[in-house]
């Protein structure tokens, strides 16, 4: 299916990788995670449980409202092409 795209005009974007090199994407992502882990592999600062009151604030929680997050994923998934791999159901109404 992929090679048939040469029949279609290309957009302005130049692909950074092709399907044959797609596994590179997985490698890049893996390296990104590993580098993040490596950077955090030192002894962490001690933050005892009695000093975590600020960490309990909504401002300090990345998923303080999962239902809101889920709605946004579905909304942006129908309006933007980079909704990610959340397994969001599509729709036959034109939302796909």
């Amino acid at each position, binding site marked *: 299916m992929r090679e048939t795209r040469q029949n279609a005009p290309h*957009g302005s974007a130049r692909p950074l990788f092709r399907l044959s090199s797609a596994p590179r994407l997985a490698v890049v992502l893996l390296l990104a995670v590993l580098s*993040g882990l490596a950077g955090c592999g030192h002894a962490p600062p001690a933050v005892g449980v009695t000093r975590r009151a600020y960490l309990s604030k909504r401002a*300090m929680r990345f998923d303080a409202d999962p239902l809101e997050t889920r709605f946004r994923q579905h909304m942006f998934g129908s309006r933007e092409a980079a909704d990610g791999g959340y397994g969001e159901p599509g729709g036959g109404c034109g939302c796909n």
Partner: protein
Amino acid sequence: MRLQLRRAPRRRDLVLVLLAGAATAVPARAGEHDHVTVRGAYYREASTRVVQPVVEVGKDLPYGFDLTATYLLDAITSASVAAGTTADSIFTELRNEVGLRAGWTPRWGRLTLAYRYSAESDYWSHGVAASALWRLWGDTATVGVAAGASFDGAWPRTRTPNCPTAMQLICRMRSYFGGANYTQIWSETFITQLAAEIGYIDGFQASLYRAVPNLGYEVVPSTRLRGAVTPRAAYYVPRTQTGFQLQYRYYRDDWSIGAHMVEGRVYQTVARDFEIRASYRYYAQTPADFWCDWMARPDCYGPSATVYTADPKLQHVSTSMPELKVTWDAVRWRGVPIFGWVAEGTFEASYARLFQNTSFGDAHLLQLGYTLPY
């Protein structure tokens, strides 16, 4: 949960443990999942309106287990020409979704299993997912992994579909996704997270109804490999009771779509029970390599084209969305007889304006919610 715990200050240590767990994405001990949440969202743009009520009920079980059930309804008043359909369809499209999530929170972290079923008149989807999370470094960091799969089917109301496999009346799609994240607490006011996700889709990914003139219903590649990396950071200023969140997401797939998203949030506590959140999100993407603007250049897809689309979201897209949200813990109503148990909950309301460069046009988004711990 916070309200219950405020009423029991002698449990403060337990509160801190519970909330610290939440801060590191590790749900805490008994009681954390006991809640009922009712939410409603209203989305309106030029020719599409969506109303989405949601109900979620969570319950803690013995031995660290918990269950959460969710029901969601999408009521779409019109599929739109802006979405690429050949005509506005004046009908009410309903999508029902139910979800069930089971969790287990041992001392070392958390495990979850989730199932979701979504159905509408011409589309169904089954999804399963599992995740695991470990606490590290004296409970100052977590590592999480997640994986899942989705199995979808679509069948059009008014035509025989162009499924990838001939003679199929139901166009099927399978998607698989996985992800990992690392969260690190650096101090009592600073926390960061790095997340990565990857997904693979195989099957029918077009719309059932969008068509390109002279070519017919759109045809897009049947496979898609996508990935994204998302760093996040949060910082809190105790003196002013102000919190800041910043996240960036880089996305790439093998349709040559690359996207950047950045979002900043400012949280301000105005009173003991009142908080305001102001946020701004910006998103930009490159077009798919098989996209062409057939509306501006009707002949841009040649007669021999085998891949063609009318999907506006596969072109160059940029959106921005400022949003304002208020959250109010109804503690001031405690003791007022007519409010009763309502005073134990938390209200939230938000309004956002979504600016889009595509034919969808700009949109309004209003959300209301109420969560009652029990």
